[in-house]
């Protein structure tokens, strides 16, 4: 079956530009997560949605980062006025209802800010 789909796969932005990253989770998955992964590091939690409700955004690095999931399926992570330190891979993951079930990840969007 279809997994988590993310687009674009690669994004190059000039410093100060806004970017929008899209995530299409596994159909029927209630929970959706965004993670940030720096080179050579493990993924770091950014934010969590249960259906359309954003229940935790404590991992977002600054108020330039904004995520939404208006209809409880597709999600968008938006970064305003990008900075070089925003360069990373942004991973989206989804999960079914059970707490003790693994997250299923997409292949990520590699963002490079020049």
């Amino acid at each position, binding site marked *: 079956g279809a997994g988590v789909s993310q687009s674009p796969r690669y994004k190059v932005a000039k410093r100060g530009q806004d970017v929008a990253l899209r995530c299409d989770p596994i159909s029927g998955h209630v929970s959706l997560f965004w993670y940030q992964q720096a080179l050579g590091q493990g*993924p770091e939690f950014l934010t969590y949605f249960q259906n359309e409700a954003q229940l*935790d955004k404590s991992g977002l690095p600054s108020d330039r980062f904004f995520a939404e999931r208006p209809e409880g399926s597709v999600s968008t992570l938006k970064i305003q006025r990008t900075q070089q330190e925003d360069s990373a891979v942004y*991973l989206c993951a989804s999960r079914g209802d059970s707490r003790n079930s*693994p997250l299923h990840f997409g292949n990520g969007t590699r963002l490079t800010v020049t």
Partner: protein
Amino acid sequence: GESVGLHLPTLSVQEGDNSIINCAYSNSASDYFIWYKQESGKGPQFIIDIRSNMDKRQGQRVTVLLNKTVKHLSLQIAATQPGDSAVYFCAELSRGSNYKLTFGKGTLLTVNP
């Protein structure tokens, strides 16, 4: 060969050997653990999970061992193949959380043909 997770992030083995990748965790409240495999340019891929009420769980060619006394998790891969070359992450979920999975730094496994 053996890796001590965070301290020795690279493990190199010969094809056909068994691999052991280790992970130390610090949160005694963690009660659910997952191993992920991440190949270059891809997202983390689920391998196997274990709950804290278990000490061992086996999958296809993989075994996860959990030692709660010393807060240690290991992933054993039998008959390692070149396709197993990747970065392996352990991740933990705290009993107090329903969702915030915390990842370790990862171990790079290289399989030599």
